[in-house]
């Protein structure tokens, strides 16, 4: 039964192997010089200034969440589109229902003012 999953196992092994391979090889091949600047968290870029605790407007999260929701819904449409012929009327109606629900949510979000930045 589990034989079916051998490709998955191989894939996992390849993934892990690649990661290990890259780290190991780069540590062997690359030159290694250790001094203070090198050991800073960020070797390059701006030096940190002020408090590290910065408040981000909650709008970010709202927008990000909305983006995720609608993005995922779109992803759902790909397999649907691929199988559209096979699904026939049933598929069409289902997607229509789905879209209507999405649309209602969209209207709700809009009316609620979640898309306004200020």
């Amino acid at each position: 039964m589990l034989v079916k999953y051998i490709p998955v196992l191989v894939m996992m092994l390849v993934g892990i192997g690649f990661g290990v391979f890259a780290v190991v090889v780069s540590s062997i091949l690359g030159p290694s010089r250790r001094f203070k600047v090198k050991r800073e968290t960020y070797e390059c870029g701006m030096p940190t200034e002020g408090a590290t605790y910065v408040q981000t407007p909650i709008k970010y999260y709202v927008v990000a969440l909305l983006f995720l929701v609608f993005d995922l819904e779109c992803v759902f449409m790909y397999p649907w589109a691929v199988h559209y012929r096979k699904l026939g009327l049933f598929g069409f109606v289902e997607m229509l229902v789905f879209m209507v629900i999405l649309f209602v949510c969209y209207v709700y979000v809009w009316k609620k003012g979640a898309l306004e930045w200020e």
Partner: protein
Amino acid sequence: MEMLEFVVPALNVKAILPQAILSLTALTVLLVGVSSPHNKKTSSLGYLSLVGVVVALISTLMINGARESAYNGMVLMDGFSSFITLIVCIVTLLTILSSINYQRFFPRLNCGEYYCLLLFAAVGMSFMGSAGNLLMIFLALETMSISIYVLAGFKSDEAQSIESAMKYFLLGAFASGFLLFGFALVYGCTGTMDLVKISAFLTAHPEVIHSKMLMGGVALMTVGFGFKVAMFPFHMWTPDVYEGAPTSITGFMATGVKAAAFAALLRVFFVALGHLQADWTGIMWLLAFLTMTIGNVVALSQTNIKRMLAYSSIAHAGYLLVGFVAGSKLGQSGILFYLLSYAFTNLGAFGVIALLGRDGGEYTSLDDFAGLGFKYPLMGLAMAVFMFSMAGIPPASGFMGKFYLFSSAMKAGFIWLAIFGVINSVISLYYYLRVVVVMYFKEVERDVVMPKPSAAVVVGLVIAAIGVLQMGIFPSYFWDMARQSVQAMLM
């Protein structure tokens, strides 16, 4: 693996008609609520959702009797699902009626989201009764749970309400994880998620029945469902959550969630895993006993009536588990009957408690009820009826419900469990009747004034009281219905 095959199901609207109506209403309410922000003072949203629920209720009664499985076995349409949907519709109806009054004093609740979530929770509940697939059960459970997490914290200006929502959410997610893992194990064992096919697989492969994997799955599913029905030892969240949630929602949680979770529990355990009945009976016996005993004993020392009813709801879960342990058709019918009776009783009781709430806060201490029996005779009478029903005193419905549950246990040979059930009922008398005693015989310490109730909540309480008395005095109608529902369960 048959999962990979893809069959286009037929579009069967009838099978999901009540749920579709509820969903449509929910969306409509949401849109109406958001597009007219100035109607804060009216109850139009409540009445709009009321119409939807009533239509769903009628449609349920109309399709009652149909018996088929739809959407590749995802949705089962049989007497059982109709009965659960009926309970859910009644629960939602009474909750909305109570909310319409309650929201006058907690205007935050008067918005489209509140009713929308209520209706979506109802959709989830009713799908839990008609789901024929583990995946579908999980989806329904989450639909219901997520809506209720939010509803529990709906009084977002009150720390207690938010705390309650947070606790419920964290622990609920935790328990859902166990449930899902349990499903996964069962799927791993049997290779299917379809309840009927699981049973068929186990019939064909009896050696799997006692595999550790399947057993583990059953254990974890017990945890998941046990959490939702507030079974010991997964009941700890109940009092805190019930106390913090808005009163109108507490009743909804106690009755609707319980009904839905028991529906799914019965379907999964008796349809899919009927072969394991001998294995689970022992532990469920113990859990039933502990659940009702712990619930009743702790309820004795409560002074807050919502908290008391929370523990009482644990105890009632214990009584329901007695029917589950009995395992016979009689026991299952008893569970359905009891769920309906409990819905009327508990929503009635919470409806009365919600009557006292107003701007400053809620009056849920037992002392607040002192003298109310004479001050508001009808309210006192209604509360007394509901308390009698909870305690199981004839002619209220609780008596008949317990009669059916305990007699099914006796018939199935669990005489001691029935005896413990009766002893527990006796213990529970104390705290239920204390409410009545306080209402009628206690000196008034703090003068509680009940705001004049709106017509909606009066109608709701009358429906609940009629339901309680009807099921108590003439139980046959609903009892026959419950029995036919169980008989007609798709196996």
